[in-house]
Each structure stands twice: as C-alpha cells, then as structure tokens.
C-alpha cells in the first residue's frame, strides 16, 4: 500500500533527514484540506471534486517539500490555489448548492435549517471578488495572521490588508441590507 517514498521531512528535534511517505502526509492533511476548501468555497456539489483536486495537487507538489516548515504551511497555498480555480469555475458556470452536505445533527429540521443558513451566508460571499473573499476567509474565518495569509496568497501584506478592508466593507453593507441576516447576527430588529 505504501508507495512513492518521494520526499523528505527534516525531524524538528534532530538534523537527521528521514524519508517520509507521501500517502501518510496526504492522510494527515485530509482534514485540513477539507476544512479549508469548505470554508473558502462553501458547501456545494463541487466540494468533493475540489477536495480531490487539491489532494492531487498536493501529491504532485509534496516531493518538493524539504521539511523546512510545517506540512500545513506548505500545503495551504496549494489548496488555496485549487479553491480559486473552483470559485472561478462557479462564476463561469453557477452550480446549485442544493446538496446534502449535512452536519451530523440528529434533528432533520434543524439540519436543514443549518444547511440553508450556511448556503445563504456563502451567497453573500459570492457577491465580493474571489481575492477579497479568500482574504476574508483566511483572516476573519481562519484567523490566520496577516503576514501568514499574505504568504499563502503570494502577495504583499499591504495588498492583503487592502483586499480584507474592501471585503469587510462590502460584506458589512450587504449584511445590513438584509434585515433577516442582520437580525441573525444581532445587528438589527
């Protein structure tokens, strides 16, 4: 089962370079990859495809990983690039979000409510440019420091801050324009 001993990870406690299995690394990354994709593009019928694509990109990129950083630090930019591709695809060819990516709620009614709410929130995100959306997700949702988010995006910190500022301004305007959503977050009657 274990194949492709293709990259090396530097042990943090010693200078010995130990070989590492790509598949083991991918297995370790699956939860993070799914979470990053889910929070960036939201639920949808293309969520599973995006996760699988991101894993393929990682399997291709991992042999270049030299173990000088954390595995997730290496993987996050790769996953974000994949998420960008899927956001662009959605803009070109809108997809229905009517898919049962249900949480593990037992109550079917509550489960449906939660899904509907999440889809509605992501529709708000759909109204801002992808770059601003990713900046907002990285900084506000994932709570990643600006410097690290800028590295993931491959832009300067100043550029990232500009995107984030515009995203926050536009999202606040849109949330306030929707009384129901505004009330949901305690911002209105």
């Amino acid at each position, binding site marked *: 089962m274990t194949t492709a001993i293709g990259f090396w990870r530097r042990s943090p406690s010693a200078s010995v370079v130990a070989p590492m299995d790509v598949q083991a690394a991918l297995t370790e990354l699956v939860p993070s990859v799914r979470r990053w994709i889910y929070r960036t593009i939201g639920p949808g019928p293309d969520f599973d495809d995006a996760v699988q694509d991101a894993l393929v990109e990682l399997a291709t990129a991992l042999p270049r990983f030299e173990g000088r950083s954390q595995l997730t630090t290496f993987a996050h930019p790769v996953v974000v690039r994949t998420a960008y591709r899927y956001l662009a695809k959605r803009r070109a060819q809108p997809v229905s979000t009517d898919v049962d990516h249900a949480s593990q709620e037992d109550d079917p009614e509550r489960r449906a409510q939660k899904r509907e709410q*999440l889809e509605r*929130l992501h529709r708000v995100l759909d109204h801002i440019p992808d770059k601003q959306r990713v900046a907002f997700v990285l900084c506000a949702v994932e709570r990643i420091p600006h410097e690290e988010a800028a590295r993931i995006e491959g832009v300067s910190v100043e550029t990232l801050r500009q995107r984030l500022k515009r995203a926050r301004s536009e999202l606040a305007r849109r949330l306030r324009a929707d009384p129901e959503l505004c009330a949901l977050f305690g911002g209105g009657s």
Partner: protein
Amino acid sequence: VSDDDLLDAFAETLRAEPPPIDAKQTAALVARARPRPSPVYTVFPWAMAAVVLLAIGAGVLYWTTHEDAPVEAPIARGIEERRVGPHSIVSDDAIYELHDGPEVELTRGHALFVIAPLEGGSFVVRAGDTNVRVTGTVFGVSRDGDDVSVHVYEGSVEVTRGREVRSLGAGDSFGERALSRTLDERGRAEADARAEEPPPPAEPPPVVVQQEPPPAPRVPTDTEIRRLIAAGQHREALAASERAVGARPRSSELWMLRGDALRGLGNRADAARAYERAMTYGSSSERAIAGLSAARVTDDPTRAVAYLEDSGALEPSSPVRDAAQALRERLAR
C-alpha cells in the same frame, strides 16, 4: 451592533466544519490522489528525437555551407548606411544581400554605392537581370520589380542587361526610375567631395567590360583571420591580415584583427599602432573598442590615457565604458 461585531458574528458562523468522513473515505481520497506526471515525461518521445535530429541537421548544414553562404543578409528599412571595407552602401527602404566579392544583390528599393578605388578587383551590383560593375565610383541603383535604373555621379560604370551592355559616365543614367531624393543629394555630395580630393597618382582603372568577373586574387576574410587568431596561429593571422589590408586598407575590423595578431606575437608596440589605425577608420563604437585595446597594449601610461580619451571609450555611450574607466583608474594609481 458595530460593523466589526456584525462581521465577527458572520465569520464565526462561517467557521463551520465540513461533514465528517470516516477512515475508509479518507483512504479512498488519498488513493485517488495520484501525482500529475511531470510535463517532461508527457512530451512525445518522437518529438524529442525529431528536435535532436533537426538540431544535428541544422548544425551539419551550417558547417558545410556557411563558407559559401552570404556573408550577411540584412533587411534594410529607411535610410541605412553600411560600410563594406573601404566602401559605403547607403540604402533607402531597400532590401539587399551582401556577398563575398564584394557583390551586392538588390531585391528592391534605392541604394547609393560609394566605391573606393579598387586595384585589380571589382564591385558588382545585381538587380534582377541588370548587372552593374565598377572599379571605383559613386553611383545609385533603384529597383522596383523589373524596373531598374542606374545613376552615375562620379567615375564610370558598365551596365549589362541581357545582351545590352552600356558604359555610363558621371551624370549619365540608365533607366527611367528616379533615385530617392535623399540618396540623389548624397550622391552629388559624395561626387563633389571626391572632386576636391587630389587626383590619384595613376590613371583610374578602366571599366571592366566582360560579363564574368576576372578571377580576383584570393583575399582572406575577417572570419578566416579571426579563426587563425582563435587557434593561436598568430603568425599566419598576421600574414593573412597583411594581404587583406592591401585590399581593404580602411577596414577598422581588419586593423583590429591585425592588432590582435601582433599582440599574440608579443609585439605590443606594433599592436598599439594597428589599434590606432582601427580607431582612425572605425565607427564610434569601433573607435572606443580599438582605443581600449590600444591602451591595454601600450607600455606608456600617458599614451594609454590619451588612447582612452581620444577614442571616446570613456564616453557614456561607449560600449566599453566600464572597462575603460577601470583601466584609467588603474593607470592613475
């Protein structure tokens, strides 16, 4: 509620976890994640082989034919001036090829030829089936398809077209097509300048009448001399440059090569003098390079600085400015 609080609550809601999957599903995801093949391995191997074979074929073709190939095949646009040894070609929106001989093949446009007196050799311009042969004169040729005309400003030329052979003197023209105004004015100016020069000691060589050029003595080309120098055969390079200088005494490049050969033989004083001659005949760039070379070989620091300054090697536009400045600073120390 402030915008910040509203957005924090919004982000908090988005901080949802995807629906969980079990170990079996995770393993399936990982198993399907096969790395993309490297682009290198996806290239069709025959395409790679074809590229290699083409490269080899092109190399063989070059090495077997480049001696006979045109020395240069420029495409001239607008007004361009090119020096061919002691001669000048001023072209106006012309396309021409320059071959050994020297021989020029004019495809279209206007060209003015300012030919230095030749001893034993000739200079030929071909424009379709019209050939112009000279041994030293100023004349222009204009061509548009089969419409070819020749205008002589100084000396005389022989024009052959099919079986028709005509000798033209200064002021004569062959054909109806006018030369461009710029070249016409330049031709008159060159002719006037020559009229002011002291007459040559001997009679100018007569116009060559025969259609086929007489076998000219073999004059080594710059490329041949350069190869001899590169091979370390400085004595042979010097001998070859002496023969070539006889035919092209005002070629800056030739004097540079002669300087290189002399420097290779350890004769630094004569090398400096040769570079000095190269400075005399060269363009501004050639002057700068020759000046730097002369400054490097001379043993007299004062003279070396003079070479650098006179040649323009220290000027901002000089192609060897940095090297020249470094040398001058070294000489100053």
